[in-house]
């Protein structure tokens, strides 16, 4: 099994591979050179044709972004796993040049480019491209991936990242926090002591600051615990480019950028920014229309024009430390990620903030020294760290998972935990199943997901109520419900609830423990008064009399179907669709009486579908519906022992 490491970014992505000898290779794309010292990033840009099909991915798509803003998609990492309403209410959607709509299935976003694409699908396209390029370069198939994710990604967003990786064709997925990956790549010693780590990620569009703790846990895994996540969505490389372009315009004596020059000016600004990371000053000859001028930009100019941005960076950083009750002198490790961090103005600012912290100052010095040379730098550290991570991976789940089981007694109801995946189970774990031993007259079942957490010392454990999973059945009397729980190889908790009596009543949750409703500790067992609508399985379902069954079948054929057929003049679509099933069920229900339930459901569907298509007069429909209700009373009867 070969593992590819991927650092998927808002603007650029990078893949790396570590062979058996420990040599790390960066994956190149679309004609990039073989040398490890040159850039190997794949711009996370996708261009689409008008019909919504993919035109190109990477550098070519990026070059089209300025001229085709509605057809080139990028920056969708910000949308991943977040609700549409959350993004909309915070004004984040206004930053995007393409149309974004809500998805009624999960409340997240869909990007509109001729076709609708979810952020997960878009991420999977980038991952697929990285996988394909890696397979071509290394010459082996990759079915396993170590994906780095920002420190501010919660379990819900990480789960979306896993979904995208699965869609891209990876079957084994490991998610690794970027600070951990960067710490590994930079050979920062990680042991059981808790290192206070500050991560500053200045990306293309955003600034993210994360304060957390890195340590090697009892479960033999490198852990990153977030203390504070903060950030600014208008403090990234793009904003610096914007300030430089305004500076150039000012030097040219212009107020506004001519629209046909906008793309070129931004490109010029980006180049100047990159040069200023290496040189004290840059000189550019700029020509717009009839004006041609040589413009000199110094590092001092850059710091001056980005004064507001630097102030914002400083405030965010100090606020994060303050909120977590830490002083700059207490930070053990400083990790810098992203392209713009190389600019000397950020180095000077950080050196000022951490002036009393020799540990961090040494790290800062080493960071800027190493970025000038070698393969591990601010842009590659996370991907390389991901490639080196596998030696730390634990194969055991530290927690146990199960459901709250209900035991019915005469007057009371008892709740107790039923653990299906024990603590310290090896991934993947087949888990177990829980057969529901009661029936709910309402047809609505609720299953409480319970997490078993070891207490310090490992001698005992406690239970936490994590989430509630609801399941509804159409026919409460004929439901046989089973809850299955397992842990897959990607360390995701999989819960499947099925009604054994109906194959179409099934629901599956992958990553069921993410997005928890609560983490309340529950003391078991719990005793409560028994609710009236919950019956144990001593309720006996009485099959209908044979005469009732025959009568119902005859009503279906002679009344219902005839009414529909006689009303249908041209549009026979619902009958065409339902008739063969009906006939099959009718034939079988004589041999196998239990199928009358299916026949009943089909009859209901036929009635409502015919009516919705205007094939039945409301009065006819009302009469037939009353008849059907009467049949329901006769067909479905129960007795309580």
């Amino acid at each position, binding site marked *: 099994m070969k593992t590819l490491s991927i650092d998927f970014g808002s603007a650029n992505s990078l893949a790396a591979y570590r062979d058996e000898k420990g040599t790390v290779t960066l994956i190149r794309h679309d004609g990039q050179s073989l040398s490890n010292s040159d850039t190997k990033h794949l711009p996370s840009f996708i261009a689409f044709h008008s019909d919504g099909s993919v035109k190109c991915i990477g550098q070519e798509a990026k070059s089209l972004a300025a001229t085709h803003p509605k057809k080139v998609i990028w920056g969708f990492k910000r949308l991943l796993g977040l*609700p*549409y309403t959350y993004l*909309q209410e915070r004004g984040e959607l206004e930053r995007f040049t393409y149309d974004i*709509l809500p*998805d*009624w299935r999960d*409340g997240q976003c869909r990007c509109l480019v001729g076709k609708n694409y979810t952020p997960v699908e878009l991420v999977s396209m980038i991952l697929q491209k990285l996988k394909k390029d890696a397979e071509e370069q290394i010459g082996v198939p990759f079915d396993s991936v170590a994906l780095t994710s920002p420190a501010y990604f919660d379990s819900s967003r990480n789960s979306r990242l896993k979904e995208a990786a699965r869609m891209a064709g990876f079957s084994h997925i490991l998610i690794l926090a970027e600070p951990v990956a960067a710490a590994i790549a930079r050979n920062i010693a990680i042991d059981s002591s808790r290192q206070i780590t500050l991560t500053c990620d200045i990306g293309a569009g955003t600034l993210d600051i994360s304060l957390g703790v890195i340590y090697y846990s009892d479960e033999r895994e490198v852990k990153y615990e977030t203390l504070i996540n903060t950030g600014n969505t208008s403090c990234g490389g793009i904003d610096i480019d914007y300030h430089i372009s305004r500076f150039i315009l000012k030097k040219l004596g212009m107020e506004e950028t001519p629209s046909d020059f906008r793309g070129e000016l931004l490109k010029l600004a980006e180049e100047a920014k990159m040069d200023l990371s290496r040189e004290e000053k840059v000189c550019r000859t700029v020509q717009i229309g009839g004006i041609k001028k040589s413009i000199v930009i110094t590092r001092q100019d850059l710091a001056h024009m980005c004064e507001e941005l630097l102030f914002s960076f400083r405030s965010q950083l100090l606020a994060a430390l303050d909120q977590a009750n830490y002083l700059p002198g207490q930070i053990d490790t400083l990790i810098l990620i992203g392209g713009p961090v190389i600019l000397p103005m950020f180095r000077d600012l950080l050196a000022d903030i951490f002036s009393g912290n020799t540990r961090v100052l040494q790290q800062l010095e080493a960071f800027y020294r190493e970025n000038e040379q070698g393969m591990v730098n601010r842009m590659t550290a996370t991907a390389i760290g991901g490639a080196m991570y596998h030696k730390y991976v634990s194969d055991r789940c530290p927690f146990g998972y199960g459901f709250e089981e209900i035991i019915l007694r005469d007057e009371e109801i008892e709740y107790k935990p039923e653990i299906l995946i024990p603590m310290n189970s090896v991934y993947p774990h087949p888990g177990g199943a829980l057969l529901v031993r009661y029936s709910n007259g309402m047809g609505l079942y*609720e299953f409480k997901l319970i997490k078993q957490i070891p207490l310090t010392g490992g001698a005992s454990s406690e239970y936490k109520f994590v989430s509630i999973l609801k399941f509804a059945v159409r026919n409460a009397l004929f439901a046989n419900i089973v809850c299955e729980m397992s842990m897959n190889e990607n360390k995701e908790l999989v819960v499947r609830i099925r009604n054994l009596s109906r194959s179409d009543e099934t629901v599956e949750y992958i990553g069921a423990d993410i997005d928890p409703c609560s983490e309340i500790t529950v003391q078991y067992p719990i005793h409560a008064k028994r609710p009236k609508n919950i019956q144990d399985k001593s309720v006996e379902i009485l099959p209908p009399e044979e005469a009732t069954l025959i009568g119902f079948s005859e009503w279906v054929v002679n009344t219902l179907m005839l009414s529909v057929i006689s009303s249908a003049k041209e549009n026979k679509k619902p009958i065409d669709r339902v008739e063969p099933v009906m006939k099959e069920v009718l034939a079988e229900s004589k041999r196998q009486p239990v199928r009358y339930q299916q026949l009943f459901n089909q009859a209901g569907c036929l009635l409502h*579908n015919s009516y919705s298509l205007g094939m039945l007069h409301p009065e006819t429909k009302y009469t037939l519906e009353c008849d059907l209700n009467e049949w329901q009373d006769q067909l479905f009867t129960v007795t309580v022992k």
Partner: protein
Amino acid sequence: MKRDDHQQELFFLADNSYENKDYATSEQYYHQLIEADPSEYSYHSGISFALRLQGKLDEAVVSIDQAISLNPQNANLYWMRAAAMKSFACQQPDMSIQERREVFRQSIPYEQTSLSLDPTNEEAWLDLIESRICILGFHNAIGDLGRSNRYIQRLRLIWAFLGSLAFVLAGMETDPELEAIFFEPGASFNAWCLIELERLLKDLGQENFDPLRLQKAKNYMDHFIEHKTRGGLLLRLI
């Protein structure tokens, strides 16, 4: 906290009066309870119910605020707060649509807080989606529809209808998968919701709204009522 015998008795009397729809007496008992123990949140939430059903909606809102300050982790209190605000807005004959809409807008954070504490409350999700539609935030309504998807089982029919309504009013193509829920034999509905929806469409009709979209939404409403015959009959009887 443990109530003493006197409070227990008063609580029983307040509850009993409430059950017998004697809300004024229930209110009196709750006043006595609050005097006896002003730190018990359930007395404040109890009186708010009694006040709300007597039409004293502004006082009801004040009582719920007191209950929230005493028990800020109780999801139901925020939902009740939003419901009281919306009832208040709907029962003021002099209030313009714009003013009413502003109250609905202010109710949204309470509904969101309630759902962040207890996302399994189906009716609170429906209320939030309805508030979004009322303030013409159709895209957000569809977004919340999606967020509520995993929690909605019992009121799936009304949920699907609200979603379809938001799609139509936003001028978007309705998803057939969403419409198909109308025809699920087991889908149940809530007659009270129908009444609320009727009012919602009436309010929207008073705006300068795209008449074609509104007509399509009204057709949906009729179709929905006809589909569930008993619901339609009930609505007409009322």
